[in-house]
């Protein structure tokens, strides 16, 4: 089986792991909402000094934009440098995989008093992730304080190529200014 480098920077935690055959052979993380820039290279350097990776799997969000982009930019360039495959997956799905219940909702902090969220029935995501105020996210037990599971991240199928932003950039056109 493939030796995978798993990277996720969609939450306040920078997570890096080496996964093979569904097993986490090495993992490390650092917490801090503005730490992704320095944390990610340090973690990956340690990981790849021990293992010869053959693919990169990266969480494409949703998550706070600046940190999210650090992970994606790094993963893309690392894959290019090593000439290995890159896959992007939904970070919320990698969080959901560790929940034991059947029907539930995953939320992560989206700042501005909102959350990114997705609903799961029988453990499978229903619809696309969204961003809402917490009061508007109801209908199933909510799991709010989890981080992506790196083995689950690698196990997810598919390949998302664009970051999951869910919000437009804040900007007002000159012509529309009051």
């Amino acid at each position, binding site marked *: 089986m493939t030796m995978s480098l798993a990277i996720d920077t969609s939450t306040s935690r920078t997570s890096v792991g080496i996964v093979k055959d569904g097993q986490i052979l090495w993992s490390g993380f650092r917490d801090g909402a503005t730490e992704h820039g320095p944390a990610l*290279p*340090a973690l990956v350097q340690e990981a790849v000094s021990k293992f010869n990776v053959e693919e990169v799997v990266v969480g494409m969000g949703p998550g706070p934009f600046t940190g999210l*982009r650090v992970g994606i*930019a790094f993963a893309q360039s690392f*894959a*290019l440098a090593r000439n290995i495959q890159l896959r992007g997956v939904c970070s919320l799905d990698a969080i959901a995989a560790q929940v034991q219940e059947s029907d539930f909702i995953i939320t992560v902090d989206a700042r501005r008093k909102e959350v990114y969220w997705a609903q799961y029935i029988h453990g499978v995501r229903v619809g696309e992730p969204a961003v809402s105020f917490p009061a508007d996210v109801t209908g199933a037990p909510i799991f709010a304080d989890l981080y992506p599971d790196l083995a689950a991240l690698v196990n997810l199928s598919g390949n998302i190529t664009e970051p999951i932003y869910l919000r437009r950039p804040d900007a007002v056109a*000159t012509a529309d200014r009051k």
Partner: protein
Amino acid sequence: MNEPLVLGIETSCDETAVGIVRGRTLLANVISSSVEEHARFGGVVPEIASRAHLEAMQPTIQKAIKDAGVKLTDLDAIAVTAGPGLVGALLVGVGSAAGLAIGLDKPIYAVNHLAAHISVDYLTHTEPIDPTIALLVSGGHSSLLQIDDITSSITKLGQTIDDAAGEAFDKIARIMKLGFPGGPAIDASARLGNVDAINFPRGLTTSNDWNTRPFDFSFSGLKTAVARYLESVPDYVQADVAASFQEAIVDVLLLKSLVACKESGIDSLVIAGGVAANSRLRALAELRCAKANVRLRIPTPGLCTDNGAMVASLGALLVAAGRSPSPVAFDADSSMPVATISLA
């Protein structure tokens, strides 16, 4: 290593840029700009710039490699702008550069955007330029610097206390409805105008200013003066306003640069940054430097605005000088001081 092969990444503002140099030889300089996406907002929107950087980064790296005719594995080092700039934009470049460096197991140089702007001149001139006075003028910066050694010693003599020179161009162009970015628009309009038509103020040039802050700049008073003029003279001649406004900026920039040369005893001036592409600044600098016996160097217009070649150039100079690379784990620094040439 005299002729290191270095790839440089620049994302401090709205240009996603990758350059490759071998020593002082430019091999590739690829720029993808999101400027058109910002035009309708009248300025750079950080989140739009950051998204565009991520989208453009991989194609830009791959085109640079192709243009240079090298393989990624041939590279001796990666260089990247660590600051100053927009932090979200910088981090896309920093993340990409770190991914390359660790993936290739090559050293990384986290360099200063301002020092890189000056170092690009080394690509167009073979002999060393140090020591020199440097005038760095762009949309985000206006500084006078003394460069004793581009790889180890840069001293800030002064800087703008309010708007950057390029910012003043943008703001006046917006008021005159000439579009964004304002520099090229005003430059073009000014070619048909009279530089002496209106006597706009030269910031920080009173005798008290010369005593207390001789090398600082101020452009906000000029901006207000132009805005007032436009209000009070509804049938103004656009070309004359553009030419007179541009002259006020260019005049004071060169005045202070040449005083810095004289006072430091350094008879060399480098002008760098996006505003160095301004045709009036280039022409007047040549005249005045010739008169003052100061050797003038200005990079070609294409290398004045933000680019990756300048980052690669500074990286190559650092490698050639035997400077230590940056640690693998470093953070972007939105307000990186110019004295910090690369992160240690």
